[in-house]
């Protein structure tokens, strides 16, 4: 936009120059860094480690995009956003990409002028209760006090679920996961509800995780995915196909360990196209031939990223479930690279 940057930065809502409509790819290249919006800290998904480096399931998406576009997986500026600030940050151009376990919904995709570029985690909302409460189904929670994180789709699902089952509850809105954990453990609420993955992550940090159970009901569909601003389709394509490359790599058996060997020896034409030894897929999205190879090398393929950050070997301990490849009965299905 034509207005000067100084005045633009002063605008009330931070809707500044360089927002939607501009070529994000050029901006990112000129800047030499990808501005990636993540959570303020959720173990396994995005949190700084002991050395202050961000790591996690969502962080890996940012790094893969940075590797594809800038050839450097560390050329990422991680910008922590809360449930409240995330959309304004993306709409204003403060971040190029939001990878912050955000649920793909109709109104966010259309009314808020964003484009969800895919799903990197299929989630659903669940309930955690202390074993001692003696509750085995969410439908037994009539009259319960429920801790719920505010500013998420969870509190809408919660209202809908209790209304549909004609039972009552008392919500305790909380701002952060840490606070919810404290309230729940102090008994200020009977149950804590958020995405099942988040509950598992939270429970993993308890002193005695065995004293708490997740109720079997999953009351909503929560497809979590990265999103970009609506209007810059070229940039959207780059992010979408980077994510697809990670998923396809797992399906095709390309890992960060065997990628060089696969590139040299593969007889599978799709692998060859992805590795840039055949065809010119990279050129079609304005990148070089080896973009997807770099994206996969950054943090590994989808399966590796999952296993390293939130898989069953980690304290979070999530099973693949819906997030398995379609060939294994899951929902992950990358369109062909052709």
């Amino acid at each position: 936009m034509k207005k000067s940057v100084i005045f633009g930065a002063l605008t009330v809502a931070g809707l500044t120059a360089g927002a939607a409509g501009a070529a994000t790819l050029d901006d990112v290249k000129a800047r030499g860094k990808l501005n990636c919006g993540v959570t303020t800290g959720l173990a396994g998904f995005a949190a700084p480690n002991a050395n202050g480096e961000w790591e996690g399931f969502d962080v890996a998406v940012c790094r893969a995009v940075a590797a594809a576009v800038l050839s450097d997986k560390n050329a990422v500026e991680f910008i922590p956003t809360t449930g409240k600030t995330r959309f304004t940050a993306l709409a204003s151009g403060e971040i190029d990409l939001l990878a912050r376990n955000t649920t793909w919904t109709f109104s966010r995709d259309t009314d808020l002028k964003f484009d969800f570029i895919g799903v990197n985690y299929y989630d659903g909302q669940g309930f955690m209760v202390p074993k001692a409460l003696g509750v085995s189904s969410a439908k037994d929670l009539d009259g319960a006090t429920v801790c719920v994180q505010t500013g998420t789709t969870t509190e809408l699902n919660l209202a809908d679920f209790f209304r549909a089952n004609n039972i009552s509850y008392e919500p305790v809105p909380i701002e952060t996961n840490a606070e919810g954990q404290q309230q729940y453990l102090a008994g200020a609420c009977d149950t804590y509800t958020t995405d099942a993955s988040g509950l598992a992550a939270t429970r993993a940090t308890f002193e005695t995780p065995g004293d708490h159970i997740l109720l079997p009901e999953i009351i909503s569909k929560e497809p979590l995915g990265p999103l970009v601003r609506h209007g810059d389709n070229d940039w959207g394509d780059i992010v979408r196909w980077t994510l697809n490359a990670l998923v396809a790599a797992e399906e095709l058996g390309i890992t960060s360990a065997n990628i060089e060997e696969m590139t040299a020896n593969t007889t599978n034409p799709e692998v060859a196209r992805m590795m840039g030894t055949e065809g010119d897929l990279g050129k079609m999205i304005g990148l070089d031939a080896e973009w997807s190879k770099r994206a996969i090398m950054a943090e590994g393929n989808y399966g590796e990223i999952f296993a390293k950050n939130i898989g069953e070997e980690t304290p979070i301990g999530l099973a693949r479930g819906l997030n398995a490849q379609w060939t294994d009965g899951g929902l992950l299905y990358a369109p062909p690279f052709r």
Partner: protein
Amino acid sequence: MTTLTDPDKESFRLSMLLYDTRYRSITMQVIALGLLVAAFWFLGSNLAANLRAAGLNISYSFLGAPAGYDINQTLIPYTSRSSNLQAAWVGIINTLLVAFLACITATIFGVIAGVLRLSNNWLVRKLMAVYVEIFRNIPVLIWILIIYTIMTVSTPAPNAFRGETPTSTMFLDAFAFTNRGVYIPAPVWGPGSMVVVATFVLSIIGVFAYRRYATKLLFDTGRLLPTFWPSVAIFFLPSILVFFVMGSPIGLEYPALKGFNFQGGIQIGAPLIALWFALSIYTGAFIAENVRAGIQAVSRGQSEAAAALGLRPGRIMNLVVLPQALRVIIPPLISQYLNITKNSSLAILVGYADITATLGGITLNQTGRAIECVTLLMIFYLIISLTISFGMNIYNNSTKLKER
């Protein structure tokens, strides 16, 4: 000798706007105003242009759409199917409630602490100094969190009231203190209860009338009537009498543990208590300093003169010092009341559903209409603050020195 001549005819030249001290300040102010307007116009048009470029618009139609979320403390009818506007009203009323309660208790804390800070007793004086310094110098946000955490951790969960040998029991079988709030009996209004209420209101008026009569009698004839015990009698006796004459029309509904929580009675939620207490004790420390400053601003000669007339220390404070100190206390007190109202926007920290939590929090998030919601919030707080200032200024004018 000097000769007097007619002064030059006043003539106005454009350069006088800059060089004549009579006009220069006005010129500067006009220029500054022009720049300010231009800056706001620029920001506004920039915002509009950028919104247009992003394909977004400013629309308030979301206010009519169903909110879709539940709120834990609703003083007006509200369900998750109510509109966002209704949710905003719920928030507004909750904000006003906590601000009103906190203003009253903060004033009480402040006046007591401020007077006691000037006590002749060393221990009392120092204790109050510690209170003021500790609470004034730690951010209110931290106090809210500390108080809420202490409440949730130290009081028992409703679970503790259950079973054959519960670890906690209800106070007098009527009050339950849990970490989700305090449950107290609720009055049940039977037929004829309005007569009792009317009697009660009348007796309050009666108390004031009696005290006014006593004062008038004192001024006119010098006869001093006792006021305390007659006031107590007027306050209680007629209501109690009417209550039994009407056949006890007002009953009590006691809270009882049912399911996960106490049901029945009135619930005062833990978030409300924590926020209310934190705001009042924090702002009370500031008000204490205002009160102390006000009292010290009254010349010592006043209290010495009152003592010379034979007034007792309590009366000196109530009749001579405090009325004069009020003139100094009220103006800063206004800004403390404004602070309470504005600080109540930290409510979401403890899950209290004020206007910032409903309209500026959940509604903003769910609709993504940040600019619209924040604008509404700004307008609301502006209106509330201006109203409080207006009301307090009227009171200030009534207490300030009358110049004749």
